[in-house]
Each structure stands twice: as structure tokens, then as C-alpha cells.
């Protein structure tokens, strides 16, 4: 039987399949771990409604906890409050940048006005230049947009604040 601390430790090893440098705990999607008589329950908040990684993450969580010695494991989804990029751990932000993904700026409040042609001042994660352009609000995954550095000419991704 795992203790709660051991369960969290095991969860620290579960990677996001799309961004394998951050764990699900660093991403802030694991809300609660409950040790009950019917086994271990892990409460997870989804990132995006249609994120294709959600089911894979749930399977990886079960696998990691079983490998660490847990008996019965179940994963529950909790929608409220909705996940925000503000929940990403500070350490993970450094890892994201080192991996070539600019970490998210603070999320806007829900009632904020829509801004047209928003261009954020982002520093290129490779050369540090702030001479960058947004190529697309939507990148290779729902959670990222695509930018280009006009100095080193390399494309890079930005983790969208949500």
C-alpha cells in the first residue's frame, strides 16, 4: 500500500506525452490524490476539452502508480475550477524554455475583452532576441501557438495562457 506522499512521488515521474520535459504534477493537472478503502483515486483536471493526450495521461498515471506498488487505481476528471496555465510550476517554466517552448504569460481574466491582432513581446528561447513574430495562434498542439524569431530565423512555440 502506497502512502499519499509516495503516490505524489510516483506522479512526479509521469510525463506529458506532448511535452515530455514536464510532469503531470508540474503541469498542475493533478488536483487531488485520495487513499480510500476502494483503492487510490487520482483527480485530474483536463487542459483543453479536446486534448488528445488526456486519455494517454490517465493510462500513464495508472501504470506509474501500479509500478510503484499501488493496488486498485482510478482516475477521475474534475472540470471545476478549469485548469489554468497559471498552475504550471515555476520549475517547469524553466524546463519549457530550455526545451524551446516559451512558457505562458499570466492568463487573462475570463471577462477580458477580445484583443485584435494581439502580438506578445516574446523572447526567442534560442537566441534571446525579442524581435519575434507570431505565425499562428494555433500550433502543433491546442495548447501552443507558433512564433518565429526574426534574428536567428528559427521557429519556436509559445505555451498559450489559458
Amino acid at each position, binding site marked *: 500500500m502506497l502512502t499519499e506522499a509516495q503516490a505524489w512521488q510516483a506522479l512526479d515521474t509521469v510525463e506529458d506525452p506532448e511535452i515530455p520535459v514536464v510532469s503531470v504534477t508540474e503541469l498542475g493537472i493533478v488536483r487531488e490524490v485520495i487513499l480510500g478503502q476502494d483503492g487510490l483515486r487520482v483527480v485530474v483536471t*483536463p487542459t*483543453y*476539452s*479536446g*486534448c*488528445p493526450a488526456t486519455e494517454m495521461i490517465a493510462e500513464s498515471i495508472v501504470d506509474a502508480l501500479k509500478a510503484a506498488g499501488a493496488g486498485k487505481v482510478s482516475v477521475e476528471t474534475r*472540470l*471545476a*475550477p*478549469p*485548469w*489554468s496555465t497559471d498552475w504550471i510550476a515555476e520549475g517547469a517554466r524553466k524546463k519549457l524554455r530550455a526545451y524551446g517552448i516559451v512558457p505562458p504569460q499570466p*492568463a*487573462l481574466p*475570463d*471577462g*477580458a475583452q*477580445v*484583443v*485584435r*491582432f*494581439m502580438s506578445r513581446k516574446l523572447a526567442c528561447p534560442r537566441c534571446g532576441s525579442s524581435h519575434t513574430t507570431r*505565425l*499562428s*495562434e*494555433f*500550433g*502543433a*498542439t*491546442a495548447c501552443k501557438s*507558433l512564433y518565429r524569431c526574426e534574428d536567428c530565423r528559427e521557429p519556436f512555440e509559445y505555451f*498559450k495562457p*489559458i
Partner: protein
Amino acid sequence: MGATAMTQTTPAHLEYVLRLGDAALIHGQRLSEWCGHAPVLEEDLALANMALDFVGQARMLLSYAGTLEGKGRDEDALAFLRHEGQYRHPTLCELPNTDFAHTTIKGFLLGSFNLLMWSRLCGSSDKALAAIAAKSLKEARYHAEHTGDWVIRLGDGTDESHRRAQAALDILWPYTNELFAANPTDDAAAAAGVGPAWSELAGEWEAAVLPVLQQATLTVPARTPFQSYGKFGRHSEHLGHLLAVMQHLPRSFPGATW
């Protein structure tokens, strides 16, 4: 959550949730048809990503509709095993893709509506629906931003992009009448605090949409008495074709799993 929702359930409540789920599903399905066909790679990614958001929202909403209905139907049964007359989304969602301007204008008209709708539904008396709304609102904001930017780029772009954007607006605008048409389901849902009557949102929607169309140098068509009736299950001839593609696999191979 489930237990309190069950005791609140009325036919109007179920229909209201089902309509939201169907609108997300059918709009998402139309967007997904662009995958591999968009004019540039970046927009191919954007359209596919937005399609994923809508299908994800549809999954949450249809799962919840199945719970409210209490007949054991899950999200898949509701998405794949209903006939066209049983879908409750507005007709606008199902209109077939023609060109990128058409998809952009449609996405903008619907996206601006969704932003208002989710924003209001965050305060729903139905806590499960409010949770879905709070989640979807964050995504809807990106959709409204992205599609609105493109409306301006196309409308205030080249002669060709302007011509196409105007043609799309002329065709799609009359279908927005249905979004705000009074409906007994809405009256009951609004009275129970489930969500706003869609007709209440007309003014705010126009206030959001018209300045963008103006900036795009597009001419807003005059309102006509045209009405479509998708919310009542009376759809255009296009829905059957969409469903034939979308439902083919689960109907041909019942119970198939990946």
C-alpha cells in the same frame, strides 16, 4: 452533482444542453473536414485545433445530456446513433464548407455567440453545466480572437478576399436569425436559471460582431424574415450527408473500439 442534476431535469433542461452539445459537435465536424485542405499550413493546424476543442466540448455536453436523460445513452450513442431530426443545433452549424472565407465568417459568427453564451452559462444554476461553460469559455476566447482577426484580414484584404468574405457574409447572415429566435425551450430553461434565452443575447452579439465587420469593410446585409429551424430538428438537406460520413463507422461496425 449527478444526483442534484437528476432532480432538476426537465425536458427543456435536457433539450437546452443537447442543443449546446449538438452545436459543438456539428460545427467541430465541419471544421475537421478542413484537415489537410486549408489554404496554408498554419490555418490547417488552427482549424484542426479548433475542431478538437469543439469535439471535446461536445463530448462533455453530450455525456452530461445522457446523464440528464437517464436512459443509459452515453456521448457516443448521442453523437453517432441519432437520426437527423433528433439533432437540435441551429442550421448555421451544418452548412457545408465552401471556401476559407465562408468557414472564417461562419466561425466568427458562431464563435462570438459562443463567447457570450459560455460567459453567461458560468453562472448557471446547473453546476455541471457551469463547469463545462467555465472550461469552454477559455477556449472560445481564442476562437473568437482568431476568427475575428481573419475576418478583418480577408474583408480588408485584396479585392478577391473581400469579394469572397462579402459573399460568405451575405449567404450566412440570414441563418443568424435562428440563433436569436424565441423558443419555448429557452423560456423554460431561462425561468429555471439553467441559462439565458438565446434571444436575450442578440444585442450583445451584434455589439461584438458589427464593429469587426465594419473594420473588415464588409456590408452587413439587411435583416430579412428568413428563418431556419434546426433547433426544432428541422434541418437543411446538408445534415444527412454530414451524418452519413460522421456516423458511418459506428453504424457499420457497432461497438467497434480502437
